[in-house]
């Protein structure tokens, strides 16, 4: 450690290049979610506790189905990046990599499951 120069210690530790990209992707998904959230809350919400037939008929309509699918995909992609920031702040070492991998898999898995289920109901 004592023989490392300041430059050697800094190289490869990450500059602003990729961080701004991630920040911009979060900005885009957050604006998308601001539009989607009210639509989703007030289409999906009233369906909770409804009979199965009614739910199937409702999500066979284009608007509720498209809003629900977009909401599931966008929110899980937003979550994937957001939770990665959380993990990077509080988890260290190998546990950090493992946690990020697991939560990334969970995000894609949940998004795919949601889209599959909504498509199956809608089609």
């Amino acid at each position, binding site marked *: *450690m*004592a*023989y*490392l*120069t*300041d430059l050697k210690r800094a190289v490869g530790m990450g500059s602003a290049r990729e961080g701004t990209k991630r920040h911009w992707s979060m*900005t885009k998904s*957050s*604006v998308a*979610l*601001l539009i989607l*959230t009210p639509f989703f*809350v*007030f289409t*999906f*919400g*009233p369906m*909770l*506790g*409804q009979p*199965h037939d009614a*739910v*199937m008929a409702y*999500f066979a309509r284009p608007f509720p189905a498209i809003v*629900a699918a977009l909401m*599931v995909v966008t*929110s*899980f992609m937003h*979550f994937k990046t*957001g*939770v990665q920031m*959380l993990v990077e702040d509080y988890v260290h070492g190998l546990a950090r990599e493992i946690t990020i991998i697991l939560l990334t898999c969970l995000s894609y898995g*949940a998004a795919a*499951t*949601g889209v*599959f*289920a*909504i498509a*199956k*109901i809608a089609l």
Partner: protein
Amino acid sequence: MADVNRGKRPLSPHLTIYRPQMTSITSIFTRITGNALLVAALLIVWWFLAAATSSEYFAVADGLITSWFGDLVMTLSVWALWYHALAGVRHLIWDAGYGLEIETAEKLGLAVIAGSLVLTIITILAV
């Protein structure tokens, strides 16, 4: 020159010595609400999967999500959703370079708290 004192320098005071402030608490809650929303999101995906699978499976998922415990989780999640959304708007305002004065930032924090409560009540009444 390499820094010979690296690793031996005194640390500046961190989180533990600060009095909780409007700005820090509303910021921490943005993170907590955003990540806690995972629970509701997974419940909702499960609800959709159950609906797509069968009437019996749907009854199980819908029964759990509308039980008293499900209602509690969903009600808290509605608040978390609106809080996170409004706090996100505050971040977009800051990112654009506005509202960064301490007084304005504190007012925005109050607006986020009040706004999220109002939107939660509206959602509960309307849905």
